[in-house]
Structures are given as structure tokens and as C-alpha cells.
């Protein structure tokens, strides 16, 4: 099995799976990645700020809004962490959110770097 099968691929974004999700439309996937990158750092920062403020409602909304794109792009680890933050925000239990938030920020740095450096010719 090769990383291209998508099974042994431990990269933060599984591009091959994401391509399948958009019906093999490479142009569309590129457009989605570009759109996602436009305000990515801003969105991650507002989630981190909401966690720091202890604003459970905003944490929930910010995490939820990131889950959609992360799911589309098959950024599985980041998606799972955003899901945890969404759950904590919804339950109003932000006690553990700081640790999860830090892990999420680290993972999102990897996601952003991966997307910026991605060589589209390899897809």
C-alpha cells in the first residue's frame, strides 16, 4: 500500500481523499483550498481568543464553522480537535478547552503549512 491510497498517509490534510470528495475536480479543490486559506489564521485566532475569554458560545460557533471546511479537506486530526472544542463549547465546559485549543492551534499550523507548500502537480 502506498501513501497515495490514503491509508498510510499521516499528512495533516489527505488531499487524495479530498479530491474524491469533490468528484475528482482538481480546479474546484484548488479553489476551495485558496478560499480556506484566505481567512484561516483569523478564524483560528478568534477561536483561541474565545477559549481564553471563557466564551463557550463563541467557542462553539468558531469551532463549528471550522469543522465544515476541515471535513471537506479531510484534515482529520484538526477536524477531530475542532469537534472536541465544539462539544466543550456547547456543554459550557471550557475547563479542558485550553489544552485542546493548544493542540488544535498546533495542528492548524501544520495544516496551513501543508496547504501552502502543496505541489498540485503531484495530485
Amino acid at each position: 500500500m502506498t501513501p497515495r491510497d490514503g491509508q498510510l498517509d499521516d499528512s495533516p490534510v489527505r488531499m487524495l481523499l479530498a479530491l474524491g470528495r469533490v468528484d475528482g475536480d482538481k480546479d474546484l479543490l484548488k479553489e476551495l483550498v485558496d478560499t480556506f486559506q484566505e481567512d484561516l489564521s483569523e478564524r483560528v485566532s478568534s477561536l483561541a481568543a474565545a477559549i481564553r475569554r471563557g466564551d463557550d458560545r463563541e467557542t462553539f460557533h468558531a469551532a463549528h464553522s471550522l469543522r465544515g471546511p476541515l471535513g471537506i479537506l479531510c484534515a482529520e486530526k484538526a477536524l477531530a480537535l475542532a469537534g472536541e472544542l465544539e462539544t466543550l463549547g456547547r456543554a459550557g465546559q471550557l475547563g479542558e478547552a485550553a489544552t485542546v485549543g493548544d493542540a488544535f492551534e498546533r495542528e492548524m499550523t501544520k495544516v496551513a503549512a501543508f496547504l501552502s507548500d502543496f505541489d498540485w502537480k503531484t495530485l
Partner: protein
Amino acid sequence: MRILIADDDLLTRRILEKILAKSGHEVVAAASGSEAWQILSGQDPPALAILDWMMPQMTGVEVCRKVREAGGSVPTYLVVLTSRGQTDDLVTAFEAGADDYITKPFEAEELRARVSVGVRMITLQQQLADRILALEESLAHVQQLQGLIPICAWCRQVRSDGNFWEKVESYLGKRSGLQFTHAICPTCKAKQIEGLKHLRPA
């Protein structure tokens, strides 16, 4: 078919738009629940709507509830897009009036399959509504035949409302649109032939 997609996430809207347009559908997009409700409550709304659950101002489930409350001759087919896959959540969506749901993130194939189920349902409902309309129109043209009809035991003429006597075929023709062709039954035919025999010169 014209399809409304409502999602506050631009990426999801773009994917939905692209996949549905590729399948030959005309897509109308909304970025909030209230915008979706405006479109669905306006004139000539799309027959099918894909609504994200979590949207600003009004959730997809609230939009479903409002659409169902408003009614309509052919109900809009409503699909809720959700990242919540738990039974309780799905029951909430169905109780609010959703016809189906798609869990995020979705695959293009699944989206297409669920949309074609919706298209099939809408076509069936439209055919049914057309049949009902045609039946109602037919009924309006047919006067009901009911109650007791006085008929002469000898000549078989029927007494109409105005106390006139008329032939049974004329009476039924006026009230039901029935048309009669004239023939002779074997019994009458035999009787007539027998009668004619008596007319022959001995």
C-alpha cells in the same frame, strides 16, 4: 430542477453548487437561514432545498418548521445537512418537517443519490397533484346522479325535475355526459322477428 442550497460556509456552498450544477440542476444559494426562508416563502420557490442545520439567524431545522407550517399544494422536499449524526438530532429534524438528511462531510455520490430520491418524490407528488386537479375538473362537469328516479314501468321514460317525461338515454346523457349507441339485444331481436313473421301474408 431548481434547488436551494443554504449554508453559511462558503466552501460547502461551492461544493454543493458545483456537484448539483454538474448533474444539470439550477442552483439558488443562500448564506443564512433567514435568506433561505425568504426564498422558500417567496413566489415560485425551488421544489427541493438542502439546508445546513447550523446557520446564523435561523437554523435549517427552524426553516423546515416554518415551511411545513406555511403548507403549499406541492410540499418542498427538504434535506438537512448536518454534522450531528445522533439519533435524537435526526428525530428533531424529521419532526420539524425534514424529508431526509446528509451528514457532513459528504461524498459527491451520496449527495447525488439523495437528491435523485428527492427529485423522484417531487415528480410523484406533482403527478399526483395533477391527477387530483384533473379529477376535480371532471367532477365539476359531471352532475351527480343520486336518489330515486321515477321511471314509467311501461315505456321506460324517466320523470325529470321539471315534471317532464323523457327517454332514459336523454335523461342520463344530460346528467352524466354518457353517450348511447343504439343496438338490439338478442331477446328483443327474437321478438321482433317473431312479430314480423306474423306480418307475412299467409
